Each structure stands twice: as structure tokens, then as C-alpha cells.
């Protein structure tokens, strides 16, 4: 039994066990993530759902190495991560951020933004690679030397996705990649992500508060509340509306739109 779960973890693209993340020290310490465990298989899309402040983005930041004060085990492709990330890690795992207006350097052209990771890691034939990547995310070569302020939100997010793909990673961490965009652009970006996943054989970990986005994109999901995973299920179970935990039922009800009775019945779970 134990041996087989070890094997499962070895095969997973990303495995997380007993992850705790804390911010601050002493009395002001915030325990943002509590004892979170899950595993994501290769080629899978795994969703993390929860309300604001449930710690779902913090899990991603801990994986990426941006939140440093964590305990537990994070393994990528069977390799345990230490406190410092290596160049090999950055070539395996990349992240797309929530706000495309904040994730691109305002004084760098698209060309520089895309070229920088290539120069750091010594990617060969950078010029062609940049043009190819732009085409991959649906932007023409005329965008190459523009500055972020000349781009719309959707175009910026495409650039951010292209940047994440520059090092040909295997795992993409998507931190609410569409929540800052309008609805029509959201759909375009989600479809783009689906296509890129097929073409590049990527594994996604998608964080969102939007159950519809998760249902569209993911195979399995974990529901987070107050720093804990309250439930893990497949999207099919979600679609059949058979979540077992009451918090998930409440989240599902809330996602169906505003309903007076549902609002009155809202509970807090801690």
C-alpha cells in the first residue's frame, strides 16, 4: 500500500505533501497554507479553487519559490525541492501571473521581455524563437518591438504566456490567468491555453475562484478554504454537482449566480 503510493508520487509531475506556508513572525504571523497535499500527473490540468484569501495562490508561490517560508515536501518530476531553486527548476516550471498589467516590465519591449529568459539560459537562435513564440500565442511580428502600454490586457497576457513558454517548461503554474480580463478575452485566453497544452504537452496547475473556468480547463480539482484543502474531486463529479463537503456545495451554489436564499444561508468554515 505504502509502496504503491510512493510509486505514484514518483510518477507525478508535481507532488505536494503536508505543505505549510507562513508569513511574518511572532504575533503577526499568518498561517496561510495548512497541511496541503496533492499530486498532479503528467499532462494533467489540476485546479485549485477557493475564495479570496483561501491560500490557493500562496500554494503556487511556494512551489515557484516566491514564498520562501514553507515546510513540507514539494517534488517536481520526483525531485524534492530545497529552499533554493535551481536553473533546472526554472526550465521545468514556469508561472503566469494574474494581472497582465503588473507582470510585464513597463519599460521593456515585448522583444526584451521574451528575450531575457533566453539570454539567461543561453537559448540558441533567440531571434527566430521570439518570433515563433509570438506566433504560437497568436501575436504577429509587429508586436515584437512594442511596449506593454501599447498592448491590450489580452495581448499582454499572451506575451506573459509566451514568456513562460520561452524555456520550454513542462509544468505551467497559472495564477488566475484570466480574472483581470473581460469575458470575451477570457475565453480566447483559455482556448489558447488549451491549445498550447496539447501542442507542448504541458501540465497545468490552475488557480481560480471561478468554477466555470476550472470546469472548462481541468481534469481534477482541489477545493481550498482557510488554508486547507477541504475536498479533492474530478471535474465530472463537480459537473454532476455531487461534492460532499458543505463548503464546496456552498461555493457551487454561489457560482450559479446571486440568490437571496443562498446568501442568507452562507456559513463561514474555519
Amino acid at each position, binding site marked *: 500500500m505504502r509502496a504503491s503510493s510512493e510509486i505514484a508520487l514518483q510518477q507525478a509531475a508535481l507532488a505536494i505533501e503536508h505543505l505549510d506556508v507562513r508569513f511574518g513572525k511572532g504575533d503577526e504571523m499568518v498561517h496561510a497554507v495548512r497541511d496541503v497535499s496533492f499530486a498532479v500527473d503528467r499532462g494533467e490540468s489540476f485546479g485549485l479553487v477557493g475564495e479570496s484569501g483561501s491560500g490557493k495562490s500562496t500554494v503556487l508561490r511556494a512551489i*515557484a*519559490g*516566491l514564498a520562501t517560508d514553507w515546510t513540507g515536501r514539494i517534488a517536481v518530476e520526483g525531485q524534492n525541492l530545497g529552499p533554493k*531553486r535551481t*536553473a533546472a527548476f*526554472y526550465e521545468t516550471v*514556469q*508561472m503566469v*501571473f*494574474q*494581472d497582465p498589467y*503588473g*507582470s*510585464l*516590465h*513597463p*519599460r*521593456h*519591449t515585448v*522583444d526584451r521581455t521574451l528575450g*531575457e*529568459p533566453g539570454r*539567461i*539560459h543561453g537559448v540558441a537562435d533567440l531571434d527566430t524563437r521570439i518570433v515563433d513564440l509570438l506566433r504560437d500565442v497568436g501575436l504577429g511580428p*509587429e*508586436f515584437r*518591438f*512594442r*511596449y506593454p*502600454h*501599447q498592448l491590450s490586457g489580452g495581448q499582454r497576457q499572451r506575451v*506573459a504566456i509566451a*514568456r513562460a513558454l*520561452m*524555456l520550454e517548461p513542462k509544468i505551467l503554474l497559472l495564477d488566475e490567468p484570466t480574472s483581470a480580463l473581460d469575458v470575451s478575452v477570457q475565453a480566447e485566453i483559455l482556448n489558447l491555453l488549451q491549445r498550447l497544452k496539447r501542442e507542448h504537452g504541458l501540465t497545468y496547475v490552475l488557480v481560480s475562484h471561478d468554477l466555470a473556468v476550472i470546469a472548462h480547463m481541468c481534469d481534477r480539482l482541489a477545493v481550498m478554504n482557510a488554508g486547507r484543502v477541504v475536498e479533492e474531486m474530478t471535474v465530472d463529479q463537480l459537473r454532476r454537482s455531487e461534492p460532499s463537503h458543505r463548503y464546496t456545495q456552498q461555493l457551487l451554489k454561489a457560482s450559479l449566480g446571486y440568490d437571496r436564499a443562498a446568501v442568507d444561508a452562507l456559513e463561514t468554515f474555519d
Partner: protein
Amino acid sequence: MTHHAVSAPGHRGLHAWLTSDSPTSRLQARCVQVYLGWLGLARNPLAMLGLGIVVVLVLAAIFAPLLAPADPIAQDLTRRLQPPGAPGFVLGSDELGRDILSRLLYGARVTLYVVALVVVTAPVFGLIIGTVAGYAGGWVDTVLMRFTDVFLAFPRLVLALAFVAALGPGIGNAVLAIALTSWPPYARIARAETLTIRNSDFIAAIRLQGASPLRIVIGHVMPLCISSVIVRVTLDMAGIILTAAGLGFLGLGAQPPLPEWGAMISTGRQFILDQWWVATVPGLAIFTVSLGFNLLGDGLRDALDPRSGR
């Protein structure tokens, strides 16, 4: 197609090339950025007045030997303290019979020399200290900022006086003294900007690409701090000129017979009631140049502000 449009001769072609919203090379992207910044600055008449004054100062300094009607240190004791308009002296002569206009033109060189040397040292040093302190945080930040506070605690002219007194008078030591006392504000500005930048997503993104702290500070943090530092430098320029003039006035800056504006005022002081022009003319020059730099700085602040939407 596009190449044809780019190489099309004439003003229109160049203008289109400079305002293109889809540049075709890194060089063009940079030129467009500079040109749009220039257009923003050119819309501000006061800033253009300031720029004009600064350009005149630079031209005066470069072409002083051609423009000056006389040798700035040639004395003619038979024709001392001539009023402006006297034959041979457009702006009059001083107590040793030297032509004030010529001294003024050559004095522009001294002023520009001081300004240029301070500008290439103090802001650069301040920028490095500030961005490193802000980005590194922790004890590095504490040590560097306390070090900055020590320099910030001294009144500028007093510390400059102490330096010059210790190192001996002279224009080089005056520059050193001014540079040593003027970098702390730049460090403070750069640190404050860095603190707002370092937690942004684009810095997190580049960290995730595996960039070293050095690359992040130089390539990503500094370009965003530089515009506020440049603005502050142009606004401080007046203060730098005044400090240099003040040291010259006290006899601790440029030494005679070097035509330095502050030293010129200092000697003119003795005749201020009867021969007012000896002190007034260099005083007006200092005033005009200080005003020019201030107006330019104000305009640059509006044109370079990274938070303005452009």
C-alpha cells in the same frame, strides 16, 4: 514594403518612422520612445525655455574662445571698473581691468565642469546604494541606509566647507566636496522607488526566469528609478551651481585668476555701491542658469514620470 516606407526621404517619412506604433527593430523602438518623450517635453514652453538656457550655457562654454572679445585674465589697470557699454567692454570691466563678458563666457566652462563632474558621480553612486539597499533588504539595507543617514545629517555647505578646508581650496576639491554631500538624497529616492518595484509581479516573473539579483537590479529596477533621479538631479543642479559659487565666493573653490562666477561676485562685493555691475552681472548669470535647470527639471518630471499613462 515597410522598408520602402522607412527609407522614404523627407520629414514625413522620418516622422512616421519615429511615431510608428509597430517598430521593426530595437533601434527604432528606442528612437520612438525618445521621440515621444521629446514631444511631451516640447509641449511645455517653460521647460523649453529652461532647455534653451542650458543649451546657451553649453554653447557659451564650448565656444568661449571664439565668442569672448578679450582674454579673460588679461589685466589693464588703466581701464579698471569701466561701466557696461564703455568702448571695448560690453558688460564693463572689473577691478583689474578685465573684460567681464569674457570672464562670464569662460566662467560658463567652470560652472559646466563642476556640474558635469557632480552629475556623473553623485547620482550614480546614490542610485547604486539606493537600489541595492532597497532590493536586498534586511541588514544590507540597514547598514547602507544608516551610512546614508550619516551623510544626510550634515548641512551641505558646512560639510563641503569642512572637506575643502581639510583638502585645500581648488575647483577639484570643491567638486569632490559637493559630490560627497549631494548623493544621499538620490540614494533615498532610489531606495523608495525600489521598495515599490521589488514586490511587483514583473520582478517575481524575472526571478522565476532564474535572473541573478545583479541582473534584476541593473536591468529591471534601475531603469524605473532613473527617471525620478534624473528629475531630482536637474532640480538640484541649481543648488550645485550655488554651492560651487558659494565656495568660490568664500575663496575655497576656484582660485584666482580662474574666472568663476561666485568668485567674481565675491570680489565685486567691495564695489557694489559705486560699480554695481561687477557683482550683478555674474549674479544674474548664476540666477539665469539656476532658473534654466529648474525649469528643465520641472518639465522632465512631467515628461518622464513612469506613472503617467504614456
